[in-house]
């Protein structure tokens, strides 16, 4: 249903996402999990046809998102991250407007049905400007569902809601997922685990992992962090290791000459590391592994998220 290949987007010369490749089947709820600034919104926007990628391709329901943009847009429902609504319209007027732009047949009936579906029954004449955040989110969802799309793209649908509202919206989405393909982005691990059939983890614009929540848990739990100490300055050592072709994250360790490396699971890079360091004429003082849990990874992810928010 959704087929993404080599998707890359540059803002100026800053790569927001790089080489994303993934698929989603009919009826699947696919989670797009990553910290703030990972590239989630960028990906969602490209998939929804709002902006073109720098390179790579997206096919939705068999149509190319660039070449057959209108066909794609007819088939998707999209809930952007900050739900765009017109405050001066009532819920009913808004849905009527969005529905008529999408040329929905029997629009009045559809509006009734969709208002029911998202539990807005008693509020349909309320002005959107007066609604709480939770209710607005539901109006946003109603808008995305009005034309009964085959594919739903939801960008952080629970962000900014209070815990009770979050539970409601999650249950709503789970109910929707039985009939259509849903791509949902989130920075909350438990949300992805709870709602999604499959999860893609992205960080800094790159895919880090892709699996079912259950497999991911066990797989990442087995992944290791490697600690290396050599007779060198930390900075030099980091630079040296970063020249290796394998994908890994290298950060400075606690003492001078020490670095911590997280590599992709499944590949033991310790022999390669040892050779690299010795070849560079350095003495290898220490090389050991420590376990890392899914929670630990996400602690890191949320920490970098907090930092980003502080900078804004």
């Amino acid at each position: 249903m959704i087929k993404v290949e080599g998707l890359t987007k540059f803002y100026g010369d800053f790569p927001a996402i790089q080489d994303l490749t993934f698929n989603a089947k009919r009826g699947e709820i696919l989670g797009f999990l990553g910290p703030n600034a990972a590239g989630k919104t960028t990906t969602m926007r490209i998939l929804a046809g709002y902006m073109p990628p720098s390179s790579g391709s997206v096919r939705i329901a068999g149509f190319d998102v660039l070449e057959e943009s209108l066909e794609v847009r007819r088939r998707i429902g999209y809930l952007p991250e900050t739900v765009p609504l017109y405050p001066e319209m009532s819920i009913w007027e808004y849905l009527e407007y969005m529905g008529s732009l999408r040329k929905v047949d029997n629009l009045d009936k559809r509006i009734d049905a969709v208002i029911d579906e998202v539990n807005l029954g008693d509020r349909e004449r309320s002005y959107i400007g007066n609604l709480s955040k939770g209710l607005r989110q539901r109006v946003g969802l109603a808008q995305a569902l009005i034309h009964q799309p085959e594919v739903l793209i939801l960008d952080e649908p629970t962000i900014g809601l209070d815990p009770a509202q979050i539970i409601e919206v999650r249950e709503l989405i789970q109910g929707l997922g039985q009939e259509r393909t849903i791509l949902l982005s989130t920075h909350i691990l438990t949300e992805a685990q709870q709602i999604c059939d499959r999860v893609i983890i992205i960080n800094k614009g790159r895919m880090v992992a892709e699996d079912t929540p259950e497999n991911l848990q066990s797989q990442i739990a087995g992944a290791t962090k490697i600690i290396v100490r050599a007779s060198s300055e930390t900075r030099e050592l980091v630079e040296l290791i970063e020249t290796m072709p394998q994908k890994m994250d290298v950060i400075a360790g606690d003492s001078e000459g020490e670095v911590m490396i997280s590599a992709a699971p499944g590949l033991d890079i310790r022999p390669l590391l040892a050779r690299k360091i010795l070849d560079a004429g350095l003495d290898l003082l220490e090389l050991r592994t420590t376990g890392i849990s899914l929670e630990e990874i996400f602690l890191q992810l949320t920490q970098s998220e907090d930092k980003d928010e502080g900078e804004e």
Partner: protein
Amino acid sequence: MRTVFIIAKREFRLFFVSPAAYSVSVMIFLILGGIFFINIYFGLRGGQIAPDGRMVISPLVTILLFATPAITMRLLADEQRMGTIELLLTSPVRIWELVVGKWLGATGFMMLILGVTWIYPIIIHRMTNPGIDQGVLIAAYLGLVFMISAMLAIGTFISSLFNNPIPAFFITLTLMLFLWIIGGLGSGSGTASEIASNLSFVAHYYDNLYRGVIDLGDLVYYMSLTIISLFLGTQVLESRRWR
């Protein structure tokens, strides 16, 4: 094409709850009404009212220079500010349909206001004998229709450039004043002033249409301005997606 009308309809209705649009209409009717009644008052005292239905038109044109930016400033800037453009452009709406729909909605609203100002010539017509020259009046109003359409299209285009209505207002106003003043430069002779008067917004109006002369060239001028502006607005929105 249906999409254009759906967008235009929403925009048109929105003007009836928009403070800017209310201010503009109240301003237009207060000023025009004032000018009109002063004219009638002195006309009656002098014992004669000129049988000319256009006494409110030139103040109206002046007001329009200031009113147009207020009407068009938020058309596309607000959609970009609120992010609603993201939903419009991810639904099966083409960018030109959005731009033309917005412009059409604003034009519809201003035509309504223009229609109401027709009251003044009707009153004059009743008060004078043998009445006013309807041909001249119709040409003058036809000219206004074309001129207003072009002004609103320019405003729509400028609005596409911004995420905020305020700069859109000032840039549109500046452009309107420029296109107006440039006509003053056209009063001399020589190529430069000829070009100036050809570009001028008001020269095309006052030289012919206002006098009751319907010249195809003038209509083509306003129509070209309209089409070019709407085209540019479409291009701007298109290019902003690629960033």
